[in-house]
């Protein structure tokens, strides 16, 4: 695939009666440039060309920040769709600039840790090109923690914590428990839990606490799961904890959450799970 925008029959959008050409920008994560993905990348590039949705490529490296390049390509080059070629970490690297510039996000999943793509109904590798071409765009919510955006969830490990909910009430777990703040979540088969829908304008704070049951089974621990749908919340932990935001490590004792309603335009597949 050449590094300049091209495409024989680019798909078109109709906005206010005006025909607009969709220009694609592909952001390759560093790991997909490895030899083991060479054949699959070639197949993807061929399929994109066949579908007429090939575009400029930005290759991420150790010392290359994605947001600066993407912002430049969107603002100067006129890219209307940014496609993350990689996994959840790749998506995390482009999400801020995609939301800020109001372009559409596409994903071509590669490798492991592709939960966001799975939830959005995007198949891996070459098959994702057809979904991208079909261009079913959904406006979804994005969660924000300490000023950083996330799509899926933030997991805070077992710690003594206090949660202030929308400034109205305080929730205190009676013991150590894990806290997960979800924007997009679908329980896998056999797993308990409620769907967190990224179209409802809320986050779900899920607390799992081990408590001792009474009676003969006094020493047996049972787990209670609390679920709180909220627009904003503050989590305070007694000690510094390592939390994971869409798989990315963040540390601290203060985690301030809010939701940005329907700000992320994203290409979804028919198999989307919400």
């Amino acid at each position: 695939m050449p590094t300049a925008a091209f495409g024989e029959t680019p798909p078109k959008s109709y906005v206010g009666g005006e025909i607009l050409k969709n220009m694609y920008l592909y952001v390759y994560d560093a790991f997909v440039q490895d030899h083991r993905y060479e054949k699959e990348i070639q197949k993807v590039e061929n399929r994109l060309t066949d579908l007429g949705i090939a575009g400029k490529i930005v290759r991420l490296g150790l010392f290359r920040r994605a947001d600066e390049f993407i912002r430049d390509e969107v603002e100067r080059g006129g890219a209307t769709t940014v496609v993350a070629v990689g996994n959840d970490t790749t998506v995390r690297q482009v999400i801020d600039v995609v939301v800020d510039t109001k372009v559409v996000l596409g994903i071509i999943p590669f490798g492991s840790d592709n939960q966001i793509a799975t939830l959005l109904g995007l198949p891996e590798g070459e098959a994702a090109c057809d979904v991208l071409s079909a261009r079913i765009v959904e406006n979804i919510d994005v969660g924000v923690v300490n000023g950083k955006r996330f799509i899926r969830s933030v997991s805070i490990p077992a710690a003594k914590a206090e949660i202030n909910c929308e400034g109205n009430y305080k929730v205190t777990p009676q013991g150590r428990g894990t806290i997960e703040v979800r924007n997009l979540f679908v329980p896998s088969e056999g797993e308990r839990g409620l769907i967190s829908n990224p179209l409802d304008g809320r986050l779900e704070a899920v607390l799992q606490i081990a408590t001792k049951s009474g009676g003969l089974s006094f020493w047996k621990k049972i787990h209670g799961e609390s679920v709180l749908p909220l627009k904003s919340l503050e989590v305070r932990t007694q000690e510094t904890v390592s939390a994971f935001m869409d798989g990315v490590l963040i540390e601290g004792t203060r985690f301030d959450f809010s939701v940005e309603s329907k700000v992320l335009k994203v290409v979804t597949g028919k198999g989307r799970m919400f």
Partner: protein
Amino acid sequence: MFNKDQEAGRKGGETIIAKGVKVEGDFVSDGNVIIEGEVNGSVKTAGHLEVGDSAKIKADVTASDALVAGQISGNLKVNGKLELLESSRVEGDIEAEILSVASGAKINGHITMNGKTSTEAVE
């Protein structure tokens, strides 16, 4: 209190306060609420309220409909049907359109239905 089938049928938007969690303040929800933990303050929901048998609520409670198996210390106002199960205990006034009280349920307070006060204490 609730079986796995009931849990599997639950959809998003529901609030669950499980055993082992304490809530303090003014709790407001526009969806269904399940309480099995402790609540101090006030509870107001436009949806259905279920109070599990391990729940301890010290608050005035307002709900559209309610099923109570636990303890409530405070006034309970239900716009539709209020069902008090045998393990329930209410220390406060009750206002409801339809009331169902199981044998063994304890009520200490006034009961008002359709604006008419009917009794002070029932056991």
